[in-house]
């Protein structure tokens, strides 16, 4: 059985100071974007959050079914992003080709920034 990593769990963490969430909420900026997009789609009534949650649960379940708990490598927001992509594609809100085109364009932009030594 893998343990609940006590360093991550930080059982001694004090109450968060006002106006912060205390613990690390988003480990990387893209996680906060993926989170915000899902909620914004719900607010805008483009995607029902329960439909998204059902795909999230399904994705987490199949990830766990295919690995042993000791494997590690579980990334919650990777499951979140994947569920979000599946939802907008399955509900035909976006065209998969448009996503591919955007990935290529943004990837080229980022590579270009790298070549010039700009931090991302």
């Amino acid at each position: 059985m893998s343990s609940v990593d006590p360093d991550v769990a930080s059982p001694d963490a004090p109450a968060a100071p006002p106006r912060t969430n205390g613990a690390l909420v988003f480990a990387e900026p893209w996680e906060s974007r993926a989170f915000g997009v899902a909620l914004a789609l719900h607010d805008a009534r483009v995607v029902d959050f329960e439909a998204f949650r059902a795909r999230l649960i399904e994705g987490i379940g199949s990830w766990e079914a295919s690995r042993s708990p000791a494997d590690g490598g579980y990334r919650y927001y990777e499951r979140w992003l994947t569920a979000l992509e599946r939802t907008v594609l399955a509900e035909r809100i976006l065209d998969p080709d448009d996503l591919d085109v955007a990935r290529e364009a943004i990837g080229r932009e980022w590579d270009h920034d790298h070549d010039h030594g700009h931090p991302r």
Partner: protein
Amino acid sequence: MSHEHHHHHDHDELALRAAALEAVLVEKGLLSTDQIDAIVERYERDLGPQNGARVVARAWVDPAYRDRLRSDGAAAIRELGYGGFEGDTMVVVENTPAVHNVVVCTLCSCYPWPVLGLPPTWYKSPAYRARVVAEPRAVLREFGVVLPPEVEIRVWDSTSEVRYLVLPERPSGTDGMSEEELAGLVTRDSMIGTGLAASPA
């Protein structure tokens, strides 16, 4: 530079997918960047365990409020101005000398956002979600919560319909403290059940 690129390839791939998804949704006019910014800012800044701590402190000093919290958690929490998404149905489970409550979401990551903000990483981990159900006493011990064997542990599995907030026991030696001072003793983990309220310094 290309070395750097390959080194961070996995991370880049996810960041790229997230950026592309957002860009296309914005381009199609389905969302605006401002909307997304506002949501992220709200969850990073305004929602967090400081809200739940005020609910707990009020319940400690006001028995009538505690009763309302027991009978309709969401309504009593709304009295203090907290509510909204993911907090419509709130059940407050009360710790006593005989019963200790702990909360999990076995299927994903359901959590009472209006009063606790977004969950910590360990709450979402496969290890916590599986083990706290199978061996709660051992998991609590890893969090530093060692309960006498006669204390019953109740594990509450959150669902998309119901969210749980643990009402921790008021620590001893706090008789003269104000509600605000008491709120300062209420930790996030004490409201999930993986901790206890802090003792006064």
